[in-house]
């Protein structure tokens, strides 16, 4: 926590002011004399603990209020620990990651776009004195960092596009650090890495940020991603059986990768590969036969379903095999192909137009025409019935072998050692003496190797030779097979750069039975492989990663063109000069197939792929990046908090407001502060009727209805009557009276209700009528009195109109003279009042009693007194006795409201009669 205006903190002791004021005000309490302190002391003693607590709370609230205001005025700021410098101006380095992992789609938008938008949002809020250096990096910074203003940085960010290279944030951070170290002291420094925060961003540990620099980076939710790592020729792939191996990886949950193999624009194969979570799986896909068997090459792509990062879901390949070298068979004998002769067997072996059993194809030519053949095209030259050779052939064969070719010599049925002497001179074995039918049956393996593996299945002992040469192996040559007698049958060795194999016996049936045996095919394969130059059948793949240069070189034995044209994956052609048998495309900047086309129509294809070895496809977040990770949407906020700190003024102002509210609540008079409690109690009171009744206890309360303007003709009379009631009867009477309206719930707490009036009150509403009826059905008595004491007026009309509305089933009638009302307490002869105009009490009989009593002789007027206690109005015509009678009637009415027809009970009759007889 730091303060923008620390000087304001000097005012902090002012927070103690309320305590001082309180102490002074205690001393300054006004003195006052009072008569007696008994009650006051009791009151004070009762409220002392609570008021002390309240006082303490009040003081605390006031002190807190002042302290919070002072602190708020001081401009409190909470800042991150990394941004310690608090100077003028801000130096900000924005590093935008443009590697291909930023092309991953996250919630519908590429991460790159979201990162850029987050960066731009910061730039918008920078002030004029701030400097920004915006750099775009992938494996390195694309351009060196340089200071500019927010606008320039914004343009640089807007220009940037996500590339296809890997990421190295460490290098970019090191550059940022170098730039910031040169910036002026006292400026705020911040670095924001607008990357995806994935683990692959830091192939090397990042340099520690410079002192006082806030480093922030983006964080994205981890995305599951599956990708194709690599495609290469499978082991064992050959020109005849070409196969590709595909490696697929998954980060996140296990994935089922549906692989499609495309050759050119044609889908050649499909398969599904289960990739375990966080691991990799391999699949081998078979390629179709090459269109050109002489130059077997394939180019295309393997793709899987596009997911979070679509760029890594296809891999391009360009694979070629060297064509299997052909075999040239130079026959010497014209009857070579007759049945049983060696040609007959060899035709069967090489298949003619059909598939070759030996795995290689052969051309047949008469030995005498050898010069017509282009020997360079062949891998092996076979002399199946070597006899006397045409001139020059032996020398040509030797030269062929010396340059790397293979020569395989089988003697003819009529050959003699002398015929073959020209060959014996350089072959690995000399043809020695000719032996006929002398050698024992059977064949023996002298050397075991890949050529002779699996020969145990054959019956070697059944092989027999009718005629054979005794071979004399040259030094350095190896004898592979021998007859059962141990004489070498097959000898192989090198001749110059090439190899040669020599078989001891003719192939035809008159030379032996080998051609008839199942062993014949493996034997022929072994002989061919012994004459084949090494590495002849391996595949090669032309591939490069994005951004690398593509180089096509021509071997010395190949004709090199002057120019080649390169067609890129987008279809564009580039013409390249060939210098020193070498053509170079400086940079292949997007993945795909690049085709080098020579003027003669020869093509060679390069596959360019993303560099999957950098782990860009793994979108899992880095566990502990060297920056503060924030979501893109929160970057703006987090950046300004980290750079400038968080403004805490609102917190303190809120605290002050809280203290103020507390202070106001506490300093309200207690009645106000407990107003809410009162409201609560009132609402409870509304729910539980009868509470007033409980409060009232069993005491009689004079309840008067406030209705109309003239509801209270004699304000003091009810108290007089109630006091008299308490005096002369044993009824317990509550002091005072209760005045209520028809809406009042307390209506139902009193069985007695008095309504007086001189003029017409307002008409009752339906709700009020309903309440009155409720009152009656609850046992209430309503005494209505017309206070005019004269002829019937508007009030009388109102009564006669309204009562039938309340109790429609009955009507207002004069009470009979023997009604219990006249005996309820005093024994009365009849109605009485202050005047004697109507001389009748009317009543509404309802439910076995009089629910409403209606008097018109102003009975209550008899009670009214003036300030000196003299009667207010004279009683006419009877004077004071009539007043007494009126008062007695009033008391009877009150008693009737409490006792009902109790006095009408026959049980009391004798006592009443007795009292009537012996009365005073």
């Amino acid at each position: 926590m730091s303060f923008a205006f620390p000087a304001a903190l000097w005012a902090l002791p002012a927070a103690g002011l309320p305590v001082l004021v309180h102490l002074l005000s205690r001393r300054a309490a006004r003195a006052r004399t009072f008569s007696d302190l008994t009650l006051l002391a009791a009151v004070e003693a009762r409220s002392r603990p609570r008021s002390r607590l309240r006082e303490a709370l009040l003081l605390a609230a006031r002190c807190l209020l002042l302290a919070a205001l002072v602190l708020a005025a001081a401009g409190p700021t909470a800042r991150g620990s990394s941004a310690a410098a608090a100077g003028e101006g801000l130096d900000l380095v924005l590093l935008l990651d443009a590697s291909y992992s930023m092309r991953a789609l996250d919630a519908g938008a590429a991460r790159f776009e979201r990162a850029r938008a987050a960066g731009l949002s910061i730039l918008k809020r920078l002030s004029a004195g701030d400097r920004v250096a915006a750099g775009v990096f992938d494996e390195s910074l694309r351009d060196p960092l340089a200071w500019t203003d927010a606008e320039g940085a914004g343009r640089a960010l807007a220009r940037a596009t996500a590339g296809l290279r890997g990421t190295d944030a460490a290098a970019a951070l090191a550059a940022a650090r170098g730039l910031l170290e040169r910036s002026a002291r006292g400026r705020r420094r911040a670095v924001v890495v607008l990357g995806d925060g994935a683990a692959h961003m830091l192939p090397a540990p990042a340099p520690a940020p410079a002192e006082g620099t806030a480093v922030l980076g983006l964080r994205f939710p981890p995305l599951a991603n599956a990708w194709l790592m690599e495609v290469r020729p499978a082991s064992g792939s050959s020109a005849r059986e070409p196969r590709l191996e595909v490696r697929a990886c998954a980060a996140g949950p296990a994935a089922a990768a549906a692989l499609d193999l495309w050759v050119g624009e044609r889908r050649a194969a499909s398969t599904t590969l289960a990739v375990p979570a966080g691991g990799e799986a391999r699949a081998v896909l078979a390629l179709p036969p090459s269109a050109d068997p002489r130059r077997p090459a394939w180019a295309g792509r393997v793709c899987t379903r596009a997911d979070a990062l679509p760029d890594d879901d296809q891999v391009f390949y360009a694979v070629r095999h060297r064509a299997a070298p052909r075999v040239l068979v130079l026959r010497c004998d014209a009857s070579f192909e007759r049945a049983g002769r060696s040609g007959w067997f060899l035709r069967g072996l090489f298949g003619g137009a059909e598939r070759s059993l030996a795995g290689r194809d052969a051309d047949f030519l008469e030995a005498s025409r050898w010069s017509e053949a282009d020997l360079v095209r062949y891998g092996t030259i076979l002399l199946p019935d070597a006899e006397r050779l045409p001139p020059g052939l032996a020398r040509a064969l030797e030269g062929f072998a010396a340059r790397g070719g293979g020569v395989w010599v089988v003697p003819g049925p009529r050959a003699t050692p002398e015929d073959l002497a020209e060959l014996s001179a350089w072959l690995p074995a000399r043809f020695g003496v000719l032996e006929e039918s002398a050698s024992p049956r059977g064949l023996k393996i002298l050397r075991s190797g890949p050529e002779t593996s699996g020969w145990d299945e054959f019956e070697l002992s059944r092989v027999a030779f009718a005629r054979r040469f005794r071979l004399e192996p040259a030094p350095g040559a190896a004898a592979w097979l021998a007859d059962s007698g141990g004489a070498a049958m097959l000898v192989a060795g090198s001749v110059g750069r090439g190899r040669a194999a020599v078989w001891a016996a003719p192939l035809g049936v008159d030379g032996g039975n080998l051609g008839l045996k199942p062993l014949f095919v493996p034997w022929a394969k072994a002989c061919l492989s012994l004459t084949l130059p090494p590495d002849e059948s391996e595949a090669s793949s032309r591939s490069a990663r994005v951004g690398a240069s593509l180089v096509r070189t021509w071997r010395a034995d190949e004709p090199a063109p002057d120019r080649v044209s390169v067609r890129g994956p987008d279809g564009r052609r580039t013409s390249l000069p060939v210098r020193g048998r070498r053509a170079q495309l400086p940079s292949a900047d997007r993945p795909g197939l690049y085709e080098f086309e020579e003027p003669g129509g020869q093509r060679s294809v390069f596959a360019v792929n993303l560099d999957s070895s950098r782990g860009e496809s793994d979108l899992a977040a880095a566990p502990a990046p060297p920056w503060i990770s924030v979501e893109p949407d929160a970057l703006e906020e987090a950046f300004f908090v980290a750079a400038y700190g968080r403004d805490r003024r609102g917190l303190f102002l809120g605290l002050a407001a809280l203290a103020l509210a507390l202070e106001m609540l506490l300093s309200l008079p207690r009645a106000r502060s407990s107003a809410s409690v009162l409201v609560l109690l009132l609402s409870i009171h509304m729910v539980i009727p009868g509470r007033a009744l409980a409060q009232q206890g069993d005491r009689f309360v004079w309840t008067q209805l406030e209705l109309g303007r003239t509801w209270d003709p004699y304000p003091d009379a009810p108290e007089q009557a109630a006091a008299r009631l308490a005096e002369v009867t044993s009824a317990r009477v509550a002091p005072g009276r209760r005045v209520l309206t028809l809406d009042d719930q307390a209506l139902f707490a009193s069985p007695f209700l008095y309504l007086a009036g001189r003029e017409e009150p307002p008409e009752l509403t339906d709700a009020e009528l309903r309440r009155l009826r409720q009152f009656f059905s609850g046992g209430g008595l309503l005494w209505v009195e017309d206070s005019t004491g004269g002829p019937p007026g508007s009030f009388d009309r109102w009564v006669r109109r309204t009562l039938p509305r309340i109790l429609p089933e009955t009507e207002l009638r004069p009470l009979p003279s023997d009604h219990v009302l006249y005996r309820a307490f005093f024994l009365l002869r009849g109605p009485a009042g202050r005047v004697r105009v109507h001389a009748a009490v009317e009543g509404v009989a309802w439910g076995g009693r009089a629910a409403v009593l209606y008097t018109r002789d102003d009975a209550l007027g008899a009670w009214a007194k003036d300030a000196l206690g003299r009667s207010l109005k004279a009683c006419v015509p009877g004077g004071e006795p009539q007043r007494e009678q009126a008062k007695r009637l009033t008391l009877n009415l009150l008693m009737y409201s409490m006792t009902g027809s109790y006095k009408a009970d026959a049980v009391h009759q004798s006592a009443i009669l007795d009292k009537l007889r012996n009365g005073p």
Partner: protein
Amino acid sequence: MRWLDSADQARLRALSLSPRRPAAAPGAPGRHRSLARGYSRDFAQHRPYASGDEARAIDWKAYARLDRFYVREYRAEDRFPLAVLVDTTASMAFSGEGRGAKFDLARRLAAALSWVALEQGDEAGLFPAGPGAALPPRAGSARLPEIDAALTALAPSREPDLAAALESAAAALPPRAVAVLISDLMGDTARILKALRRLSAGRRELLVLRVLDPEERDFPYEGSLRVRGLEGGEILIDAAEAARPYREAFRRQDDAYRASLRRSGVPYAVASTDAPWHAPLARLLE
């Protein structure tokens, strides 16, 4: 007359004071009914003649109608002593803002009551509840100036304890008197009530007239106060906070007096220094 001018006297003419319970034995002849039968103009009842009755008491008209001797009986008339008790404890000296002291009001009321009693021929006397000289009840028009002078001489004392003062005053009262206590009844409610019962004990009849200043009832003060009591003590109090509970406590005390006195049949009225005193006096004597 210092405490009762002629205008007041004219207003008081409507009032009369009479004991509720008729005296059992006749005292000095006066205008009040006595339970004893005697000679006066008030007819009480007819009684069958018994030997020994005076012949002039026989109602001859009744004899003419009924052919039996009936004797007319009349109520004896009585004079009673009125003892005006004036509270002289310290709290009576209290006077509210711009109003007279309670004690002055008490003196006016005492003079008025004495006048009412003397005017109807009864005896009147003055008894201070607390220190001060007492005047025993006497009849006659000369008594009023004496009482007026005694009232002038009376002053609120330093005595703090009303209950104790009432107890000692009760001992000094004549046994068969109508006693009117004029007091503010400020102090320990329970003890004062006990003393009041003592006052109304026996054949004495008690009326209580309470004198108050509205400030004692309403406590209309504000702010922080250092309250000093006239009967001793000092309290530091926040007036605004204490006012409400004080008023509540005061109301409860007044209710207690009112209810307790009503139960024991003692008339009770409250006179306030901010209102005319005639009305409470009239209520009291009703």
